[in-house]
Each structure stands twice: as C-alpha cells, then as structure tokens.
C-alpha cells in the first residue's frame, strides 16, 4: 500500500505536465488574440501597429515555443501577466476570483451538508412515510432542475417581480459603509446564488445519506444495539449516524474540485466574479496566462482529491485489488 501511495504521488507530476501540454495546445489552436480587439475604435490603428504588437507579445512564434517559454517561467513560479487585466495572472486569480468562488461554493456546500444530513437521516429512519416520500420527490426535483434555469427563475421572482427585494447578481453594492451594513449587503447578494448552486448537491447528498443510513440501520451491530435495549436515539446517534456520514464525506471530497470550475453557470447567471467565469472569459479571449493558471490549479485539486478517494476506497473494500 505504501508503495502504491508513493507511486501515485510520483505520477501526479507527469500527469500535470501532460495536462498542461494538452490544454496549452488546445488553447493555442484557437485563433484570435486581444490585439484584434484593439483595432476597433482606435483611430488609425495600422497594420504596422498590429505587427508590432504581435511581435511584442511573442504571438508570431509557434505554439510549442510559446509553451516552452511558459513552462520555463512557471517552473520559476511566474505565471505571467493577464492580458485582460494587466496584472500578474496568478495574483489576480487567487486574490480576486478564488476567494469569491470559495465563498459561493463553500457556503453552498455547507448549506447542502447541513440540510442533507438530517433530511437523509430522518428520511431513512421514517422510511415509507409521507416525510420520506416528499423528501424523495424534492430530491428528484433538485437533481433534475437545470441550475441556470433555476437561477433565472429565482432572479425573476425575487429581483424583478419583487422589485429588488434581493439583488439580481453581483458581489456587493458600492458605497455601503459600516461593518454591519456591509455584512448584510454581502449576505443579500449571496442568498440566491447559494440556493441555486446548492440545489443539485443538496438533492444528491440527501439521497446518498438516505441510502447510506438505510444500509447501516440493517447491519448487524445496529440490530444488536437495539436488541441490547439501547434507546432509539442512542442507536442512531452513536452508531448509525457516524458510520453513514463517512461515505458522504468521501463523496463531498470528490465534489470539492468540481466546485471551482463547475459553478460557471451560476456565476454567469448571477454575474458572480468567480473562477469558473474567469476561465470561460479567459478562454474566449485567449488570455493564456489566466486560463492556464486556473486550469492547472483545478487539475491539481482534482488529482489530489481523486487520490484521497481512491485510497479511502481501497482501504474500505478489500475485495478490490490494486496491482
């Protein structure tokens, strides 16, 4: 097992290199660069200007040369300057976009967790009751509803029809001063996106918690505990819950990296300046540095979490053998 672990860890680096090469190559195949944008609306922008700017940015060199230069700088810790924002790409992503995504995704994760554990547990305990059925139906709805449509409908109800009861997007309103008003303002801007984003997770995890709990309840040691005469509550809390939450936590772990790139639909609908949207915009305008640094970060996260999950899986199920 130790050998396996070390081998997997060592494999991370070449995997990342391959990923970076694939991504850079694909990005480079897409033509167009910010220089073309400069043509519109700048008086007299000439062909000489265009050639000069291309040469300046090194865009006249083939993509593998550009990749090599990029790689060289990255190994020195320099992820380059963002062409859209004029700032260092890594600093921009981690100082401005990353915290926003963590806030949004983290809160929705938290919400989903806090709701799904009790809902799933109670659903399992009171299996086949009205509560259970309604939870199941709500789950199905949550898994099926397209997040962006849900977001649009939420905006329509709370921002358009209710005339701005909740803001229709964005991070914060400017000009708000004082700690409490700022806190309330940020909260107001978070409510709708968090509800929209957490809907899918909430539904999935409730179902998962429910089946996990159902499994555990029928296990021998639970039956034994009941037979020993322990109160229902003690049975649930001391034995069943702890064991059924563990697989859920593994699942959540696998989901975490997805939160960084997958929230793009929510971020688009609610104009939330997060990482998902940053990647999308960067790809669209060929801002290589921003796109690459975000994509590599997420890839790293995914690899790390996958490794942890695989380890957990291997430890849990001895029937599965790894060479």
């Amino acid at each position: 097992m130790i050998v396996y672990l070390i081998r997997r860890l060592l494999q991370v680096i070449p995997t990342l290199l391959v990923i970076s090469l694939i991504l850079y190559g694909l990005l480079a195949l897409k033509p167009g660069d910010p220089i073309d944008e400069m043509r519109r609306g700048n008086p007299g922008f000439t062909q000489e200007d265009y050639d000069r700017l291309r040469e300046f940015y090194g865009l006249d060199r083939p993509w593998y040369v550009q990749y090599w230069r990029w790689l060289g700088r990255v190994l020195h810790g320099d992820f380059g300057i963002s062409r859209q924002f004029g700032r260092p790409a890594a600093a921009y992503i981690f100082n401005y976009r990353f915290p926003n995504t963590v806030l949004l995704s983290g809160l929705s994760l938290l919400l989903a967790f806090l709701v799904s554990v009790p809902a799933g547990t109670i659903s399992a305990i009171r299996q086949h009751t009205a509560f259970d059925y309604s939870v199941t139906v709500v789950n199905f709805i949550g898994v099926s509803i397209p997040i962006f449509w849900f977001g649009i409908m939420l905006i329509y109800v709370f921002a358009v029809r209710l005339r701005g009861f909740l803001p229709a997007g964005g991070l914060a309103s400017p000009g708000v001063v004082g700690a409490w008003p700022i806190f309330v303002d940020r909260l107001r801007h978070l409510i709708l996106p968090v509800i929209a984003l957490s809907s899918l997770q909430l539904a999935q995890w409730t179902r998962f918690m429910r089946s996990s709990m159902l499994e555990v309840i029928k296990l021998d040691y639970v039956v034994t505990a009941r037979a020993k005469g322990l109160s229902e509550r003690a049975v649930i809390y001391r034995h069943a819950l702890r064991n059924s939450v563990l697989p859920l936590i593994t699942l959540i772990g696998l989901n975490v990296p997805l939160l960084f790139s997958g929230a793009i639909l929510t971020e688009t609908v609610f104009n939330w300046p997060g990482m998902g949207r940053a990647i999308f915009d960067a790809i669209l305008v060929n801002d290589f540095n921003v796109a690459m640094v975000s994509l590599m970060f997420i890839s790293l996260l995914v690899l790390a979490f996958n490794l942890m999950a695989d380890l957990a899986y291997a430890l849990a199920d001895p029937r599965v053998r790894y060479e």
Partner: protein
Amino acid sequence: MNDPLRSVEPLESPALERSTAGESYWRGVWRRFRRHHLAMLGGVVLLIFVLGAILAPWLTPYEFSRQNRRNMFAPPSFSVPADPTLVGRCVRPQVLFLKCGMHPFGTDDLGRDILARVLQGGRVSLLVGFIAATISTILGTFIGAVAGYLGGILDSVIGRCIEIMLSIPQLPLLLILVGLLANPEVRLAVLLSDALGDAKSIVIIIGVIIVLSWMSTARLVRGQILSLREREFVEAAKGIGASRGRIIFRHLLPNVVSIIIVQATLMLGEAILIESGLSFLGLGIQPPAVSWGNMLSRAQGFLYYPNGVFIALFPGLFIFLTVLCANFLGDGLRDALDPRHYSTL
C-alpha cells in the same frame, strides 16, 4: 457534470421477497418495475415527449421559425387576437383545438410561437440526449469491460487515460473543444462543415458529450467487472473450462447489463443538461436552429420585458421535466434490474 455518485453509491438493500418459483428474470423485472408508479409515470411522460418531438412540425399551426414582428411578446392565451393584423402567417389554419392566432405558450422576442419552438427544440435536445447517452454508454461499457477483465498494462493505460480526462476540468475542456470545432480556422472544423452543413453543431455537441462522459460508465463497469471477476461463479465457470469470451459474454456482462441500462437512462438526463448548459453559454446549438438550451440563453436578456419571462419559463420547464422523468425511470429500472434477483447463472 460528472456525477461521482454513480461510482460510490452503495447498492440498495436486498429485497426481502424472493422471486416466484420458475419466473424468468425479465418477468420479474417487469413485475417489480410496475410497482414503481413514479417510474412508470416518468416512462410514459418521456414517451409522450418523444412522440411530440417526432410529430413536432404537424402539431401546431405554425412553422417554428416564422416571425411575426407585429405580435412580439404575446402572453400565453387560448384566444385569437381581435385585430387580424396581429395574426402571423400560419402553415395550416387549425390543428385540433389550436387555431391560427392562438399562442398557448405566448410568442417570443420576434413573434414566433413558443409552443412550436419548444416542440422543435425538443427534437434537437432529445435527439442529442438519446444518441449521446446511448453511444457514450456503449463506448464506456466496452472500454470498461475490456480494462476490467483483461487487466494488466491495458488496464493501467486505460485507467491513466480516464484519470487524466477526469482531472482536466470538464467544463473548460468542453468549452475549448467546442470553441475549437466550431471556429472556421481549424481544418477539422472546415471538413466537418462541408460534410454536415447545418447539422454540424448538433454532431459536435453529441461528439463532445460522448468524449467527456464515457469515463463514468467505464469506471463503473470496470469496477463491477473487477469485483465480479473474483467471485465464485466465475471461478466455477473457469473450473469447467469456459473460454474467456464465453465468460465475458455469458456470465459477466449480464450482471453488468442492469447497470448499463440504468446508466444510459440517467445519462440521458445528464446529456440534456450538458447540451442545454452549453447552448446557454452560447457554445452549443447555434441559432437559427432551436434547442431548449439556446432558447433559455436568448431569454435572459428579456426578463424585464412584459411577458418576457415566458421565453425562459417553458423551455426550462421542459428540460426539467425530461430530466426528472429520466431520473424517475432510471431509479425504477435500477430497483427492478437489481442483479441480486438474477436467479440463473
């Protein structure tokens, strides 16, 4: 996009009743399936949607792309407008109770009938969903079975590929691929354009969805084969001298079939969600072709217009209902097909 639930979810607790003596596997499946009312409902509704999509051009008096700029943003109603100049051009004067001039779902920002567009969009979205789900599942099964049973280097290589594909952030990869294939500079894209014409964006979407979702099926099948491989009945089969192929096809695959069917059904919902998400972002089905996703993307800008919300409400509702039914169906099938009821070996 990728639902890790599939690979980690524990199997449902074994049913407490036995199959009746002498009953064939499939009879048992049907009997159990019938008990899931929601799943039955889901199946029926899906069937209705599919039927509606197939018959789309004949179900309304309108042609889906016919504009009527005098009557934009009309509210949903079953009444014909009093002013005849507001009524647009129709293909036929009446279909059942729908007269020319009636817009049960309202009209959109160019005066087109939303019901007609939803039906037409359903054609595209459902087509993409079914084809992508089917091919992706078949591809994933094949790769997963091969990797799982044959093991060795092949398994490692495939496993590594899966890992890399899953590590690359899926949505951005999707964006890059679609952007690449859609733009006219890339040679492959030009080839596709010439060969496919209007259908190009549909084929690209299907292709991209397949490329990015075969992994979950492959992983699932591989995991199932891996664990089945070590079980007694395989040892027994080997013991009586069954060939490798026979083992794979007669013994292993049937156990996996139930998983595959369930996976395909659930993948239908996912494929539709991916397609609509992509179209929403502007990278999926391109106008003037209609899909539920790109209707939603257009609608965003019109939420503030009077009756503008209906352009968003109906396509999204249909996406939701389709995926919901697919999920109900998949859930019911999963219960009904549970391999623990497989009584013949």
